[in-house]
């Protein structure tokens, strides 16, 4: 469960120390079969570099895109992905699960 989180937080601090904007995405709810459990993190910087994961790779692109917007707006937001989700994101999870991902700016 803690795999790679030590380096993720160290990386976040390095980005901030270098004056880069950054955002942190966290899986906060899962339903059915989803690849990463609640609490999984993905950290993103202003140049699109990222560490960690919130899925097996299927929604990372959309989460990174949202993270870039969150860095600009400074406002946290909630994303939801799943087979039945046709609203905000045209991205689904191949495994048929659903996840909610909270994306927050890192000050």
């Amino acid at each position, binding site marked *: 469960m803690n795999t790679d989180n030590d380096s993720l937080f160290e990386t976040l601090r390095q980005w901030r120390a270098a004056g880069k904007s950054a955002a942190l995405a966290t899986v906060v709810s899962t339903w059915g079969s989803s690849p990463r459990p609640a609490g999984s993190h993905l950290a993103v910087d202003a140049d699109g570099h990222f560490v960690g994961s919130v899925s097996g790779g299927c929604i990372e692109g959309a989460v990174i895109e949202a993270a870039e917007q969150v860095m600009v707006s400074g406002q946290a937001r909630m994303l939801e992905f799943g087979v039945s989700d046709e609203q905000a994101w045209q991205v689904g999870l191949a495994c048929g699960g659903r996840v909610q991902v909270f994306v*927050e700016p*890192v000050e």
Partner: protein
Amino acid sequence: MKAAILDRITAARRARQPLVLVTRLADGAQCLLDAATAAGSLSLPAVQAAEARSLLSSGRSTRLNCDEGLFARAYVPSPRLLIVGAVHIAQALAPMAASAGYEVIVIDPRGAFASPERFPGVKLTDEWPDEALTRLGLDAATALVALSHDPKLDDPALELALPSTVFYIGALGSRRTHEKRLERLRAAGLGELTGRIHSPIGIDLGGRAPAEIAVSILAELIQVRYRGEHAASGAATRA
């Protein structure tokens, strides 16, 4: 996430201290708790604070049971692997375990073995195993493997690990070597605990190369960590 919270999480992880971060999903306000303190822009009612603190031991992350959307993210220390004996198998095992999320420390007082050239990027100590283990502390998130083949190094480590709460103990050596080791440990008064030692060490994958043995040791560690000793004891073990 405020800079102060990021700093505190990073520092706590370095110090192996558990924390739980509660986030109000409506606006991102946060409260960072340990067993005694709470800090941040979100002030939590006692009930939710207690529920969040209950996650400090399990390490589980979950939504809290309340109308307000509160998510609790527990940060608990990484599992730790202490390797006694900076031998060939240790050279393969240390980076593999690190990539599986373990904090790895290799213990060997023989400087020629525990050298940075042989273990690039691995935390090493040249203390004697009993000194090192006493300093590092043996807790339920820690595993110990004795690989040195030298009773002067392996035995003191096993004598400290057996009565401790470490979740896994393994010792390298042939059946005959292990029989002799058991005799010494019985003589040291630890006879009733010797069943905790995995020896032959590792799941029997059939491999003999150092890296193959390292895989079998790491596989057994992971199995015991998640499935417990009972499930692991049913599996065949390697020589």
